[in-house]
């Protein structure tokens, strides 16, 4: 008789436990609302608005990360400079800070007590309770995911390819757009998806900066506290659906072990 490998058995059991632990609540939540519930909640203009706002603000955060994060990530991937490790730690900070703290930190800058807040107010920019505020918060929490992913993507492009391109007469910009970008665009898209996914799931920081206009997680929270589980579930299912789409895009694009 074959001896039972205790270690192997433990590994299998823990695998089943972990997968079950993740899937069970999600499946249960999706299973409980009826199709009519789901349809009704989607017919609700407030729900649609909240989900749309979630998607657009998160996408906006990803776009901002793309515009400002790409050159920064390139710099981190290609150059060594004094204080680089410090800068890299700063990039990671938003991952570590508790979410409500992020909200409070941003408000302390945006308020009338701070000159930046006053300047913004004079320019007509309102952070508290506005879409602008939401996008700022989501960019804050999403940036590290974008920058780290894209930095790794740039690092995977050999410097020698850029050197050869330069030697052939292409300047720094032409080299970036003809060599580096075509080889790293997957990482850039993956970075944007990760940034969006992180932003869609943010609640704690947003609820402090902008309870209204309402993004989907805040709406789920409100429905739960005001009406209970049954009313929050359908909205939650739709939000999960959004995340699932992002997740599938990510799986499909993931650079994995492709050749460079």
């Amino acid at each position, binding site marked *: 008789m074959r001896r039972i490998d205790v270690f192997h058995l433990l590994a299998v059991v823990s695998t089943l436990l972990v997968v079950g632990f993740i899937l069970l609540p999600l499946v249960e939540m999706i299973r409980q609302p009826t199709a009519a519930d789901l349809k009704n909640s989607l017919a609700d203009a407030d729900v649609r608005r909240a989900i749309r706002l979630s998607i657009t603000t998160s996408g906006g955060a990803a776009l901002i990360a793309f515009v400002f994060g790409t050159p920064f990530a390139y710099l981190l991937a290609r150059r060594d400079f004094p204080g680089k490790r410090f800068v890299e730690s700063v990039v990671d900070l938003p991952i570590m800070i508790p979410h409500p703290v992020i909200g409070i930190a941003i408000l302390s800058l945006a308020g009338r007590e701070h000159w930046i807040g006053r300047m913004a107010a004079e320019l007509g920019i309102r952070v508290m309770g506005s879409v602008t505020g939401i996008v700022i918060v989501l960019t804050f929490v999403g940036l590290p995911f974008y920058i780290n992913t894209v930095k790794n993507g740039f690092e995977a492009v050999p410097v020698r390819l850029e050197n050869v391109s330069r*030697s052939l007469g292409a300047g720094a910009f032409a080299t970036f757009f003809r060599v580096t970008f075509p080889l790293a665009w997957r990482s850039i898209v993956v970075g944007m998806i990760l940034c969006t996914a992180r932003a869609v799931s943010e609640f704690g920081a947003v609820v402090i900066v902008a309870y209204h206009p309402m993004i989907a997680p805040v709406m789920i929270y409100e429905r739960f506290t005001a009406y209970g589980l049954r009313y929050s579930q359908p909205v939650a299912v739709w939000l999960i659906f959004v995340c699932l789409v992002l997740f599938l895009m990510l799986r499909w694009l993931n650079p994995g072990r492709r*050749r*460079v």
Partner: protein
Amino acid sequence: MIQVEDLVIRLPGFTLGAVSFQVAAGEFFTLLGPTGAGKTLILEAIAGMVPVHAGRIRIGGRDVTRLPPEQRRIGIVYQDQALFPHLSVRENIRFGLRYRSRSADSETNIGRLIERLGLTRLVHRGVVNLSGGERQRVALARALAVAPDILLLDEPLSALDPNFREEIRDLLKKLHQDSGLTVLMVTHDFAEAHFLAARAAVLGSGRIEQMGSMADVFHHPASPAVAAFVGMKNIFPARFDRDRAAVGSVTLCLGRPVADTASHVAVRPEDIHLHGEAAGRADGAVNGFSGQVGRIDHQGVFCEVRVRCQGLVWQTLLPTGRVLAEGIVEGARVWLRVDAEKIHVMCADAGAGGSPGAGSRG
């Protein structure tokens, strides 16, 4: 023409220079040296890819020291080819064309180049699945397509399979002969350099140890480091007295007086004769010593045989057939002899003094 004057490059943990040399127009020059000597660094400095701390670099008389790489009109071919993986063979080769002023015959030139390098049937392929030799030919075509003033080669043969290596080596030689291009090659392989280049500079730990013709470097290494690099495996510190050198308790006759500054003797392993002890002793020639065979390393056609004589270990190289026929085995007694004219004499800190002015030819 390439002129490098007092080039100094400082990196964390490594300083190169000051290094000076010239490559004449149309010359095939090689920078030789072991890994880590700074050869590739010099190449990349000429290409404009590493910051230069001090010194000047001129290409065709034009001072390019502060120019970005794209304005230097160079071609570079790396050991790993560095082909653009997202582009086809054709797109790789034509990558730089849009940055050069196009004359009417440049299209025909490209076509001729592709044909010459045997790439006609490959132009529409991707570059990822090409063989090593094909990849190297594409890299060459890409560099030459922009009609550079100089061609820089970074270990162009090192990463290739032996059969491709010969093919590319012959191709490089022919390309250089036919085009009259100025070529600077970096390599750690002396045989490659000997085949391709007319002149060389040998680098050791960030400075030029010797500069001169290939034959000069090969036959008259200026320092123990260069001697070791060109394959003289028996390098011993010695005390000199006119035409004699004392190495430990062994005295070698040099057959000529040597300079006071001499500090080392060196002998190639293939220049050492081994005989049966009795026959050798009876012969009575100078520089003959009794010894005992140590380790024998078989290398196919040749065997590396170590012989211990009076505390010195000599490395010799013998045809494997002879080793077997004459019963040379570990522990056997043998007679070791070195011809006086095969004993090279050098001083430890030759620096760049090998052949001053050798760079200003042409």
